[in-house]
């Protein structure tokens, strides 16, 4: 901790927490490649937005890199076969989610050959137009690999449209246990920098700032060396602190700009991408390779061989664990992602998706929750909150079912980073409270909209009935008038006739 940080710490201005990082020894071992498992399950929903739509049939033979499901809608990403083989099923499998509910997936039985489709290698990728770069990124199914899985091409296009000046590359990887970005930066720095330069062209930003936490000196050195020749790519060591990898926090750290609560990063002229995404962009644009695998961390107390692995998408976690030597004890908690924001998985028959940054096999000690006690108003959560919220006040409101009061305190600004629950001496599951309240408010909002829609429809129906009634009356009156007129005319004619005859 540098002098300024010590000073900030003393002033009580250092948001966030300093969790024990547990990154070693996994981060010290070079990335290993996982063999192709016999069967892969590619979830149709591996990204934010509409799930992709299968374009293959069961029994069809596919080659590695072949498109098997197309993007659907504006925010979506296509899916490619991560190895060659036969489509064995298109159906439901347990989704990588705590609920254990199923999701749709395409299953491929590997033929063991791992035979590629023909890919289009581009000799001078830097001559491509910004639109073409984004197009190639879109076609490769690249999404944000930091965990948010937002389709990258959408963000690249958005950047160009909203005139951003700075591209921020997130290499801070603040979650404990995870080191896949660290390892990627150490091992493939040149490719990452190429990806960053392509992203600069595509977004139209003038410069790229790469934020790397200062607890990764090797990654900083490797990236500095790779970026040395390029003036518009700068490496910035940032303090190791959780959640430095959160975009709002990283933007403040690197540019001093604050994203307004109701705005997006692009509104203050920046856009944030993960360094892993930059690597995928380089692979997609230069080599024409779709996103078929990702580097991810296997770690935790009972992982037999902790380390970073390049894993084909769709690999079952059980296969990953088996390939790496199994477990050294009972897995008390199976987590996908980091311990601070990751998801518990119900079992290991869940496939790896594009956003899987790590799998943690936590032992009983690491998973121990501690007994929930009453809040003693110690304010630890207030000090830890990187957003400047009052978690203890919000949770007190939520406990009393005063959701609107919690919303007034800024519930919507909560980024669910978990700092508050991490420091809480009473072990109160604060993040769970906030998820619950957000869900409740969302449901309420939807109910309100539905009620309003129903009301509106009822009103319209009444109006329609009124109008029909009115029209009926008018029509009747008109007919009556017509009849009267006809009768009058007839009478007049009669009279005239009589007059004539008289």
């Amino acid at each position, binding site marked *: 901790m540098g002098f300024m940080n010590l000073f900030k710490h003393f002033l009580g201005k250092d948001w966030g927490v300093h969790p024990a990082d547990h990154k070693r020894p996994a981060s010290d071992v070079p990335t290993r490649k996982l063999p192709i498992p016999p069967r892969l399950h590619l979830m149709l929903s591996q990204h934010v937005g509409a799930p992709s739509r299968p374009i293959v049939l069961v029994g069809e033979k596919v080659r590695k890199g072949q498109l098997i499901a197309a993007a659907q809608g504006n925010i979506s990403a296509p899916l490619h076969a991560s190895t060659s083989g036969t489509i064995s099923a298109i159906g439901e499998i347990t989704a990588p989610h*705590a609920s254990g509910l199923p999701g749709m997936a395409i299953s491929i039985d590997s033929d063991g050959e791992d035979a590629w489709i023909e890919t289009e290698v581009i000799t001078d990728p830097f001559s491509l137009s910004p639109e073409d770069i984004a197009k190639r990124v879109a076609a490769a199914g690249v999404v944000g690999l930091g965990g948010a899985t937002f389709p990258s091409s959408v963000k690249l296009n958005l950047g160009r449209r909203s005139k951003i000046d700075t591209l921020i590359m997130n290499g801070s990887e603040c979650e404990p246990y995870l080191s896949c970005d660290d390892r990627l930066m150490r091992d493939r720095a040149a490719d990452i920098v190429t990806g960053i330069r392509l992203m600069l062209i595509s977004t139209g930003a003038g410069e790229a700032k790469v934020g790397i936490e200062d607890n990764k000196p090797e990654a900083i050195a490797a990236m500095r060396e790779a970026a040395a020749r390029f003036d518009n790519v700068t490496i910035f060591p940032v303090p190791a602190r959780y959640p430095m990898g959160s975009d709002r926090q990283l933007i403040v750290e690197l540019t001093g700009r604050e994203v307004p609560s109701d705005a997006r990063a692009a509104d203050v002229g920046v856009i944030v991408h993960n360094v892993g995404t930059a690597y995928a962009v380089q692979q997609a644009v230069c080599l024409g390779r779709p996103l078929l695998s990702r580097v991810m961390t296997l770690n935790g107390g009972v992982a037999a061989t902790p380390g970073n692995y390049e894993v084909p998408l769709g690999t079952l976690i059980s296969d990953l664990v088996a390939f790496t030597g199994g477990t050294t004890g009972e897995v008390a908690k199976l987590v996908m992602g980091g311990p601070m924001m990751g998801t518990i998985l119900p079992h290991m028959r869940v496939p790896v998706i594009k956003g899987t940054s790590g799998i943690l096999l936590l032992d009983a000690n690491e998973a121990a929750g501690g007994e929930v006690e009453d809040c003693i108003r110690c304010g630890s959560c207030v000090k830890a909150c990187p957003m400047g919220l009052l978690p203890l006040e919000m949770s007190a409101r939520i406990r009393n079912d005063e959701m609107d009061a919690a919303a*007034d305190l800024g519930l919507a*600004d909560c980024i669910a980073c978990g700092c508050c629950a991490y420091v809480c*001496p009473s*072990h109160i599951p604060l993040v769970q409270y906030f998820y619950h309240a957000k869900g409740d408010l969302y449901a309420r909002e939807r109910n309100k909209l539905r009620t309003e829609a129903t009301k509106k429809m009822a009103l319209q129906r009444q109006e329609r009935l009124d109008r029909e009634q009115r029209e009926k009356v008018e029509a009747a009156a008109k007919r009556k008038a017509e009849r009267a007129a006809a009768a009058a005319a007839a009478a007049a004619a009669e009279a005239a006739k009589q007059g004539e005859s008289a």
Partner: protein
Amino acid sequence: MSTSSLTAPPIASPHAHGGNSVTLTMFRVQLALLPATLFGFWLFGWPSVFLFLLTVLSCLGFEALSLKLMGRQRFKGTLFDGSAMLTGWLLAMTLPPWAPWWVAVLGGFIAIVIGKQVFGGVGQNVFNPAMVARVALLISFPVPLTQWVFPLPLTSLAAPDFIDGLRIFLTSLPLPDAMASASLLGFSKTEMSRGIDLLHSLAGAQAPALSWLGTRAGSFGESASLLILGGGLYLLARGVITWHTPLAVLAGLAIPAAIGHAVDPGHYLSVSAHLLSGAAMLGAFFIATDYVTSPNTGAGQIVFGLGVGLLTWVIRTWGAYPEGMAFAVLLMNAMTPVIDRFVKPRILGRDRKGKPLSIPEKKGA
């Protein structure tokens, strides 16, 4: 609304914990109090040991009774989380060292039952339980609560032995004149009321010395100001408390004291007399920093602390009681919800009023 997701075992992130716990926090506070407490035992002998033990025990007893009567689910965990014990400990430290047994029992009852449990137990009380008890006792029984003794270190010949100590503790006989003394704050107040200004009274032969080491008359655990300061610094280093409250309390007390003393040294005690006497240090580091009853933002704690310090000085200087810390803390406790309402941290991306920041104009846009 279904509350099932609030009562079900937590499945949401984070899946790691910093390791802090209520018990650990309370233990650290007690560890910080230990040097001053042991020094108090040595200084005031067996009666102070009995007083301390009975106060802590009665607090635990009344806590257990309250939890049982209210049918609380988590009985053992709450009873032994250290909070009731800490309340008793702090209360004992503010009592005259030779106070009789019933003061300890009554104090425990007021602190736990009236000060804490009627508000709903740990984390719910508005006022600091130890201070509620201390003030209630002081107002109800002014005589036994202001009977100070000269320090009679355990090693000295005049110190009462175990049996004598027990007798003093249980019979509540008034103190023999030879042993009784006044605290510095009490002494100066009495002399002032007799029309003798500080320059004369403090220079007089009977003036209780302002001892840096605490070897002077005073409450059992308050005298050793420097040991308490040391304990407070340990809490700061451990991160149990932050600098905001203690510094603000000491500043709130020292600044008006310095001004007053500079203007008229005959009527206003010096800064060091204020900071090292009575409950100044204990109050600044251990009582005003009470989590439950003080604001939970740094800025709020500064407001709170300054209020405590200033009120202490005002009460010591013009009030009817020589010592003002307990009153000041209780008065500011009442202000805590108001301070918490008005002093809030700024949410990232919003202005102080909670409105989203405006989107900056872009160059060339």
